[in-house]
């Protein structure tokens, strides 16, 4: 009793009916936020429609009004506790309606059947056949997506780590200029950069002609990277395109984690281990691992879902799952199977992210 006395005095003595719920403003804040979000998801996905949908939207409004009312009725303490929920609300509701709700409709779509070949809307009937089709007909595309994305991720580490290292430790006062230079190429459209590679890797392109002229092409052909004298339309070109396009997503997080390392620590390590490589592997590399892990996620995920590189740099035998989703959805008008493939892709990636973040944490993603 004695503990709640001052609490009650602060909330205001005359409005006895509001006292009870105004005493825990954060519960109302969080409750109103979650309730409004779920209601929006329900309306957006069509779980409720007609008059019920209008009722649900009215309830969303009630949630917002309740938040404002509690803030007005309660004292400064209540307002301070409610402020974060008020600030979060617009953005979070946007994400609820346009990120969460679409995932629910996608799931629903993946379990639906198209009534006819040309129908736009599928009817929901627990049709699990779409998943069977996704796994059997499109297994090679799934395998290629994860294989190419994995190779590209390894390559971005091999190319990006030394660059991030040199900028972080040897960049001196030019560090910010150099890291800015890493970003500049990515201010041109992703699509145009990929087309640039298409032109450079074509048979008449500078790179392919140079490789063939030096005779290096024969080596690359023997290793299986080139197809005869051809570089464009090979798996190597697709992996190369993925590597290029997602490289900054690897360099930036590695740079951020390297930059945090105290240079004195490196000197101390050198005193202890005497050789630079040993100091690097024993001290710097372990400390930069959070950056490598964050970069791996930021590279692998978009690479696994990409279809632009395979479309422009590959051939019909190098298509990835993204190509199939895009094709089934927008060209073949087969939304249910496309939805099933998209859902499987996301499920696999989500499981990987969860396992990953369990081990390494997601703090450095931002």
């Amino acid at each position, binding site marked *: 009793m004695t503990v709640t006395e001052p609490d009650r005095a602060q909330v205001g003595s005359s409005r006895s009916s509001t006292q009870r719920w105004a005493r825990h403003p954060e519960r109302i804040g969080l409750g109103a936020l979650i309730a409004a979000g779920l209601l929006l998801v329900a309306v957006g996905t069509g779980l409720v429609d007609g008059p019920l949908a209008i009722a649900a939207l009215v309830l969303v409004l009630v949630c917002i009004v309740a938040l404002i009312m509690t803030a007005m009725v309660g004292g400064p303490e209540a307002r301070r506790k409610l402020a974060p929920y008020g600030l979060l609300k617009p953005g979070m509701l946007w994400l609820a309606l346009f990120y969460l709700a679409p995932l629910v409709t996608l799931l629903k779509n993946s379990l639906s059947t198209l009534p006819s070949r040309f129908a736009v809307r599928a009817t929901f009937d627990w049709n699990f056949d779409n998943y069977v089709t996704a796994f059997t007909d499109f297994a090679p595309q799934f395998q290629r997506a994860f294989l190419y994305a994995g190779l590209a991720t390894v390559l971005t580490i091999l190319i990006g780590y030394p660059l991030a290292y040199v900028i972080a430790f040897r960049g001196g006062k030019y560090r910010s200029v150099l890291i800015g230079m890493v970003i500049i190429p990515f201010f041109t459209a992703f699509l145009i950069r990929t087309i*640039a590679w298409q032109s450079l890797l074509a048979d008449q392109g500078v790179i392919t002609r140079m490789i063939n002229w030096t005779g290096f092409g024969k080596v690359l052909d023997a290793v299986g990277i080139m197809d005869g004298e051809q570089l464009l339309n090979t798996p190597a070109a697709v992996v190369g395109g993925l590597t290029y396009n997602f490289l900054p997503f690897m360099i930036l997080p590695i740079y951020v984690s390297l930059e945090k390392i105290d240079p004195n620590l490196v000197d101390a390590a050198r005193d202890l281990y005497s050789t630079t490589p040993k100091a690097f592997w024993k001290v710097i590399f372990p400390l930069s691992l959070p950056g490598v892990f964050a970069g791996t996620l930021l590279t692998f995920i978009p690479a696994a879902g990409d279809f632009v590189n395979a479309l422009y740099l590959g051939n019909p035998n190098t298509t990835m799952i993204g190509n199939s989703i895009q094709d089934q959805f927008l060209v073949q008008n087969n939304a249910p199977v496309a939805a099933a493939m998209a859902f499987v892709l996301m499920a696999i990636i989500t499981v990987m992210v969860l396992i990953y973040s369990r081990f390494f944490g997601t703090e450095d993603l931002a």
Partner: protein
Amino acid sequence: MSAPTTTGGRIGRYAVNLYAALAMFYLFIPIIWIVVFSFNKPAGKFNFVWQEFTLDNWSDPFRDEALTDALVVSLQIALVSTLIATVLGSLIAIAITRYSFRGGSGIGFFLILPLTTPEVVIGASLLTLFIGADVDRNMRTVIIAHVMFQVSFVALTVRARARGFDFTLEQAAQDLGATPMRTFWKITFPLLLPGIAAAALLSFALSIDDFIITLFNAGSTSTFPLYINALRKVSFSPQINVLATIILLASTILLVVGSARAFRSERRAAGG
């Protein structure tokens, strides 16, 4: 770090530097192609093989009307979506950096999700939402989609910048008699502004650049990347290189001006 004293160490050091320089060069290869080929006079419809040098493409950069229109649409979409996303995202960032509250860590995790979902899944899922709700796909749906991924991006970027922010300054202002509103506009907002500006600039670039999500939700609206892709089998005009070079120059200038200002204010803060 002091330089290594042994010969082997010195060679190793140069080798790593050379490797890094090559990696940096690799990043610029397609950029060099884009700029150089804006001065090419292609033989056919595709500006893919070098023929001869010309300044013709630059005499009137906006002569290809359909392409210019598509670029204007892209800029309009980017402007509106960035504006909305910057406001919504910054509010979220302020909420999670300034206050500790119930559900805070859950929200941090929720914000990462849209960025770890493949674009093709986001694009396809939004399309199923719009089809299900009978919403026509046009510029509005593209803006909605762009705001969706920009909000998370802005919130996380501003949060990262605000991590070292000293919130006791607000306390000081209020102790001196400032109202909460005045404290926000005089103390909090100016301190967060560089982070917000950087996030807005980058999410503007993300919007102009976006192809995959836009492809699913644009309907008949043609953005700059969508227009180029639609002509994939028909043509690739040097006018695309010219506009891409202009975009590149404009964003580089913005970046240089922005970081120069940040550098100056940092020096001022350090008392230099």
